[in-house]
């Protein structure tokens, strides 16, 4: 009922314009509605309704009403002659004609979901109007768990975006598209590797654990996972809503403690067949390449480092002279580096009659990496079909297929696995520093043997391939029955089988590498003269392997909903039974050696039994849930929502399986009160909520005693199986729980300013974790997870938007800001632990390390150290870092720097406490601009590089080592370069802790839509061109590498330039 109303809301305006619909008795309304329903539906192509005119004199004004953003005609827009009851409605082409009595008459253009416009007639007889979509319109409908709700009725904390908001952003997955757009939703993109998806966190981290923190993903009402979420193309997505507070999430009960991300896919809309095509091309460049010294400086630094500790030099004068002029090793990077590109094609078709509505989309996405032979492709097909079988009986079928294809060289991928290494085995970083003398190839392109490490270029180009193919088939079939004899009662059922298969094909090949003659007494100079060849040491065995991981699952839902309106009381009740079951299957097979030819097929491998091996595992899971909810409001002014969910999980022992997750929330639209007379506040709503959610992210079977076979042991010539005790069990294991209060304000000020604020306070208890340190090590064995931990969280979020016009330019500003923090109340702590190791009373990301007192710059400072002073057993030397000696085993300074001297570094965080985003957009005629700035602040990062903050001995050192201590440069910024174990300069200390806050111009997006006139000529509804730049620049004090990257050699994030076009037929 509700849905129908929405779809046809346009027609209400027709009626409303000449009769006061709202005040009509219910019966009248029904009759009018049904009458209109009958009139409107059969002929969508009705001509414009010329409504009764009071007077036919003077001026006739006509024109066309369009959507400002899409340029498309807006049929059904209501046009009112201000101060009279005269009005008209735009026809299906958006055209209208109205007569007014005088020149200074004003026309009011109103349309649901759009900002009203008033235009003076003046001398014009043609007035074309482009209406602007209402920003975050309060009367819009938002998706909530198990249904939708008018935004004005929402009492919890949620935030949402529409597909249009992100459709022009050139990223491969949805996660990245969300970055910085929603307050309280944190997206961390640590790597730009194709096919690697950013992680998403909602609000504060509420546990110290690094796993089980993912929000719950729900796609079209089916509980899903991050993998399926990332497999979607955003052309399929209608909107994404994030349930942030516990009250909104409680309807998802046991898995909602980390927030819920609801995705709704597009459905067909009543109307003619519409086809649209989108293409974009992106050119990427690494946003930041870490700086390493050139060969000249490397040679000098290396020799200085070695002579400094009494070792012979690594480069003799001939070699020094050579590297003064040559830097052959730069080719490791230049030969393997590529400028990545993205290509994306999307084709969607949609439309519908009153009986059948359809949405069909297909997309293709192809992204290459900054290293050659790494490619990611994704194909998506979706078909969403809604059918009304009879008056009371309707159904829908959604089907989607997606395929993600990762192809890459197999070197250093760590065997066959399903996780996409976000770092490509650090290979991108390694090409910058790993082999500083050797050149990769002879001048005629033969791979040079640079020693035991092997030839990276050779491995990338000829070392075999690893192909990961992920295929996902999801179906969703639902039936809805409107019970005819009980008004407002709706029964529905749906079932969703899903199938996810990941296949990995891995071909490992040895590469032929050539020995060349060297020059220089250290052989540092590689010549072109070949004196031999060999097969590379890596891989140890040439092999072909295939593995397959299949997850099948289904979810089944039965629900009954009942909507009742009784005077000013509005009830909307829902009851659902839900169950799901799944099975996981893994199989791996490999065969080594290729007797004939090296190709990625089993027939090509050795058929000897000793050259092959297989492996596999299986597991099952199941869940069952009951849930109920009541939305109640009085006069659309006072709102109360109550939900509860009973969740059953096989992860826990019988008797501990069922958990109840209730929530209650309320809202009050104060601005609707008669006494509310604050002029500049157009709308004000206060909300409050309390809810309980859970988290069951714990491995299964921890409640049941078991033993498992774990490898074997050889007796004689026969391997005998080994059996391992799976550990102490905990039959009392149950959910981890989070209860949270949330208070929110929604308001509209000065007509165009939208303001939302949230404050929350969460209490996460019964945290499931293994206590390890509070028992002595002599206890032995691992304890099972227990429900014991407590973490408190709190934070606030602000969103502020403004939309306005400046002549023909319309513009909008939207900012969001979030603060999130937490505090551990109860976590396992060792009995005899130092205070610095006690996590209790501290945030989960508190920083503890040595406090550096800086470099020991002169002999005086060295002599001032107490006799016998050591730093982790090593005597301090000139140019080394020194640290504060604050404690020892006896609790007092002991003249030894060791773990006892670590301190809590107050005010520092590893996770971002403050995040903000700012979005600016402007439109003028067909032009549009969209700018997005994102920042995080209050965060620190422990600098790290490939050699763990040590001097890069034997490799190309980072550039900052040029400013390192020496007797002639005693005031240098960095310590004296020494071989890796001569000092303990590298231990985590405040010296290496750097502020990694940043402000990033996330993107600038420019669009241009062809004018109506041209489109009409070429018989195309709309053509839009897109030019977009992503990750354009970053302002940060952290200048070693991208502050979002894990470390110096991580695969970088990309700076992109995208061109594209969108054509609607």
């Amino acid at each position, binding site marked *: 009922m509700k849905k129908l109303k929405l779809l046809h809301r346009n027609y209400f305006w027709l009626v409303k314009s000449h009769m006061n619909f709202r005040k009509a008795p219910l019966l009248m309304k029904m009759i009018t509605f049904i009458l209109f329903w009958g009139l409107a539906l059969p002929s969508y192509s009705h001509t414009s309704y010329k409504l009764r005119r009071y007077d036919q004199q003077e001026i006739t004004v006509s024109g066309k009403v369009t959507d400002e953003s899409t340029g498309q005609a807006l049929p059904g827009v209501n046009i009112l002659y201000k101060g009279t009851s005269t009005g008209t409605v735009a026809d299906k082409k958006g055209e209208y004609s109205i007569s007014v009595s005088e020149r200074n008459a004003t026309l009011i253009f109103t349309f649901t979901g759009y900002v009203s416009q008033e235009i003076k007639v003046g001398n014009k007889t043609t007035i074309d109007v482009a209406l602007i979509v209402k920003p975050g319109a309060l009367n819009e409908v938002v998706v909530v768990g198990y249904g939708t709700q008018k935004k004005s009725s929402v009492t919890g904390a949620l935030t949402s975006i529409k597909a249009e908001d992100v459709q022009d952003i050139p990223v491969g997955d949805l996660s990245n598209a969300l970055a910085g757009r929603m307050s309280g939703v944190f997206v961390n993109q640590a790597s730009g590797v194709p096919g690697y998806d950013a992680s998403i966190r909602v609000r504060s981290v509420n546990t110290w654990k690094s796993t089980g923190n993912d929000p719950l993903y729900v796609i079209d009402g089916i509980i899903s996972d991050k993998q399926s979420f990332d497999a979607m193309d955003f052309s399929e997505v209608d909107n994404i809503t994030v349930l942030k507070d516990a009250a909104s999430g409680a309807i998802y009960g046991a898995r909602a403690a980390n927030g819920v991300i609801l995705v709704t896919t597009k459905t067909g809309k009543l109307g003619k067949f519409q086809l649209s095509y989108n293409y974009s091309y992106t050119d990427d460049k690494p946003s930041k390449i870490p700086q390493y010294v050139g060969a000249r400086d490397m040679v000098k630094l290396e020799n200085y480092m070695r002579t400094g500790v009494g070792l012979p030099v690594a480069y003799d004068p001939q070699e020094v002279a050579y590297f003064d002029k040559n830097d052959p090793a730069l080719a490791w990077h230049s030969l393997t580096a590529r400028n990545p590109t993205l290509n994306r094609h999307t084709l969607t078709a949609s439309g519908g009659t009153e009986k059948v509505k359809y949405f069909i989309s297909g997309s293709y996405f192809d992204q290459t990496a900054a290293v050659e032979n790494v490619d990611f492709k994704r194909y998506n097909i979706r078909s969403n079909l809604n059918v009304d079988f009879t008056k009371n009986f309707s159904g829908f079928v959604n089907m989607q297929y997606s395929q993600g294809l990762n192809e890459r060289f197999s070197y250093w991928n760590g065997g066959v696995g399903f996780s996409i290494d976000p770092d490509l085995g650090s290979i991108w970083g390694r090409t910058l520093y790993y082999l500083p003398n050797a050149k990769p190839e002879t001048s005629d392109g033969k791979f040079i043997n640079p020693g035991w490490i092997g030839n990276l270029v050779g491995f990338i180009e000829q070392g075999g391939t690893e192909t990961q193919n992920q295929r996902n088939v999801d179906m969703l079939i639902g039936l809805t029955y409107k019970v005819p004899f009980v008004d407002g009662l709706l029964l529905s059922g749906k079932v969703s089988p899903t199938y996810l298969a990941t296949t990995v094909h891995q071909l490992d090949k040895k590469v032929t590498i050539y020995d060349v003659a060297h020059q220089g007494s250290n052989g540092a100079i590689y010549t072109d003269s070949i004196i031999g060849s060999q097969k590379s040491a890596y891989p140890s065995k040439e092999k072909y392997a295939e593995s397959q991981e299949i997850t099948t699952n289904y979810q089944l839902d039965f629900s009954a909903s009942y909507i009742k309106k009784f005077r000013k009381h509005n009830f909307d009740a829902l009851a659902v039974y839900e169950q799901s079951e799944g099975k996981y299957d893994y199989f791996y097979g490999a065969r080594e050696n290729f007797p004939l030819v090296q190709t990625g097929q089993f027939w090509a491998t050795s058929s000897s039994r000793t050259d092959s091996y297989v492996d596999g595992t299986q597991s099952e899971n199941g869940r069952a849930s009951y849930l109920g909810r009541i939305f109640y409001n009085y006069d659309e002014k006072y709102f109360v929502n109550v939900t509860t969910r009973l969740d059953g999980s096989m992860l826990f022992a019988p008797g501990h399986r069922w958990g109840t997750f209730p929530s209650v929330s309320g809202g009050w639209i104060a601005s609707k009160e008669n006494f509310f007379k604050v002029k500049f506040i157009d709308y004000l709503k206060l909300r409050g909520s309390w809810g309980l959610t859970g988290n069951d992210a714990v491995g299964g079977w921890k409640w049941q005693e078991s033993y498992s076979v774990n490898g074997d042991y050889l007796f004689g010539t026969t391997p005998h199986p080994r059996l391992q005790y799976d550990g102490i069990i905990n039959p009392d294991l149950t959910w981890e729980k989070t209860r949270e209060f949330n208070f929110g304000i929604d308001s509209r000020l000065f007509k165009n300013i939208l303001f939302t604020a949230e404050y929350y306070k969460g209490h996460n208890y019964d945290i499931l974790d293994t206590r390890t340190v509070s028992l002595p090590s002599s206890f032995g064995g691992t304890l099972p997870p227990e429900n014991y931990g407590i973490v408190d969280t709190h934070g606030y979020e602000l969103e502020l938007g403004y939309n306005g016009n400046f002549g023909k330019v319309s513009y909008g500003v939207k900012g969001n800001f979030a603060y999130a923090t937490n505090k551990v109340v109860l976590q396992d702590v060792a009995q005899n632990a130092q205070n610095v190791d006690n996590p209790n009373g501290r945030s989960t990301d508190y920083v503890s390390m040595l406090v550096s007192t800086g470099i020991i710059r002169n002999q005086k400072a060295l002599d001032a150290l107490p006799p016998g002073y050591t730093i982790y*057993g090593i005597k301090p030397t000139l140019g080394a870092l020194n640290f504060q000696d604050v404690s020892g085993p006896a609790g007092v300074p002991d003249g030894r720097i060791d773990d006892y001297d670590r301190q809590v570094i107050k005010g520092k965080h590893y996770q971002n406490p403050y995040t903000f985003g700012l979005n600016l957009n402007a439109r003028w005629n067909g032009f549009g601009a969209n700018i997005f700035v994102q920042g995080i602040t209050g965060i620190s990062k422990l600098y790290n590089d490939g050699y763990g903050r040590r001097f890069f001995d034997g490799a190309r050192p980072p550039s900052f080592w040029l400013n390192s201590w020496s007797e002639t440069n005693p005031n240098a910024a960095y310590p004296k370069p020494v071989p890796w174990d001569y000092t303990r300069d590298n231990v985590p200390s405040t010296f290496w802790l750097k502020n990694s806050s940043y402000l990033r111009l996330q993107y600038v997006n420019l669009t241009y839509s062809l004018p109506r006139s041209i489109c009409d000529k070429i018989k195309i509804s709309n053509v839009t061109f897109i030019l977009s730049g992503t990750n354009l620049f970053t302002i940060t004090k952290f200048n070693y590498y991208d502050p979002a990257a894990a470390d110096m050699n991580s695969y970088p994030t990309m700076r992109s330039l995208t061109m594209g076009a969108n054509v609607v037929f």
Partner: protein
Amino acid sequence: MKAIKRLILAGSVLMLLFIVGCSKPLDKKNLAAINSDELWSNPSVAEAYVNDMYANLMPDNFVVPRYTEETMGANTDYNGGLTDYLKGTLTADTYGDWPYDIIRNINIFLAGIDNATFDVATKNSLKGQALFWRAWTYFRMVKAYGGVPLILKPQAITDSVFVPRNKTTECIAQIIKDLNDAIPLVEDMSSVGRIDKCVAMSFKGRVLLYWASPQFNRNNDVSRWTDAYNANKSALDFLNSMGKGLLDNYKDIWTKKMNEEVIMVKMHQYPDYTDGYSQAAMRPLVYSRDAVGGNVPSLELVNAYPMKDGSKYDPGTMDYRTFFQNRDQRFYASIAYNGAAPYIVPMFGNENMWTYFYDGDGDPSTGINGKESRADNDSKFGRDASNLYSNSGFYPAKMMDENITWDNVEDGQVDWIEIRYAEVLMNMAEAANEIGNTGEALSALYKIRQRAGIDAGLNGKYGITASSVPEVRQAIMDERLVEFAFEGLRFWDLRRWRIYSSTLNNLKDHYLHGLRIEWNGTTASRPSGLTDINTIWNQFTATVMQDYNPVIMLDEDKYSFFGIPKSISDRNSNIQQNNTWGGNFDPLQ
């Protein structure tokens, strides 16, 4: 029509309800595990549980870390090549071995095995093996730290778990008790590497020898030596009765599987079982696939091998160009030196080992700048990466898989022999000497030397001149260094004799050494292939090279008992630190 539609509708709804009614979504099975009842009813399952102890506890390590004078600056020119033990940076956190998770698993088994429902013979055999492994694990800790908490049953969380350290005497008593309990339960002799009576009795001898040694026995309580003697003597008697003994040829100990010398063993096999042992590091890098510096013999070790006539090699008077002449068989079986006979033919080809330097570019003005291929990875293309790989000029030949190829250097099939007959014999000899049975000690030494191919000499003493107790003690110490080189005993021997610091401090200039051999002839005439080193030795020069960094030893007490790491004491304030590391625990009690 309508009726049919309704029927279909009703039917499909009923069908869905049927599906729901039939499935029990929460009723699932753990597909990856074995039910706990099986452990106590199925002897194969119980045996598999005990097999896990073998996998967790049986040593299988061929590569001796740089703890002793056996190896020289293997692969780096930094003192990183030396361990914390040898460069004076040992701290209480350095040595961490606290395997109570394994002890718990053993205790679980010992607590339940008596009530198992399968046959008594299997129960006894498995129980004996588990008792042995518990003794083994406790001894591993006690020899490092002194007394440790004695936990003999699987604790519940509700027990008083903050157990303090037991006295060392209590721990040793428990270890001996477990072994005494195990000995009658295990089989007499296993042919497949299970713990048998031979192993348990021999190990008991080893434990009591340590207990009698100065590390634990500062007042030289002779009764402890007597206990050690008796245990080793009865072990030997039993071994003899089982047909165990010294193998004729020293080299064959690691080529003949399960020969009569093998007592406690970790078997390795490849390729039909992927449990080969990596020997990669113990050869020139070019043959090793990414691993270097394992067991590179130092000149100190090389010099310790006796001459064929049993006399000592005297570097003061002898010529390093001929050091390889007239040594005992153990020398040739253990050391790959410049000109040594082919020792891994499938990999190296049928060529002698050449590790010399020569004038690589044939230009006398640039001096000796080449290196023969075996000496170094890169030398065959004229690169002298002298700061890598073997700086001593030697490689290990002992315990190498003779059939290994370049492709499978990680997959050696040599078994790791943790206890062999010779050790029991030497253990007995050492204890015998301390209780005054010098003759018995010497005759054991003679047996060892006889097998090493040393001439008996006119006096039948195999070159041994020792006669007093201290002299024989020294002779035994010297013999153990070479007899058991790279077998993982030296570090623990030096500690138990409390001569670790002094031995390494007595190195010349506090450095370990190697030899640099240079070819003095022309580049073209340099030796290769099977050229007999004995015919050309005088065309080489041999220079003693020292390691890049000196050995810095701490006080002997720091080594006798290691400190308890902070990570252990943090979790239990009842754990006292050793008195040699600033605490109150006396490990001598």
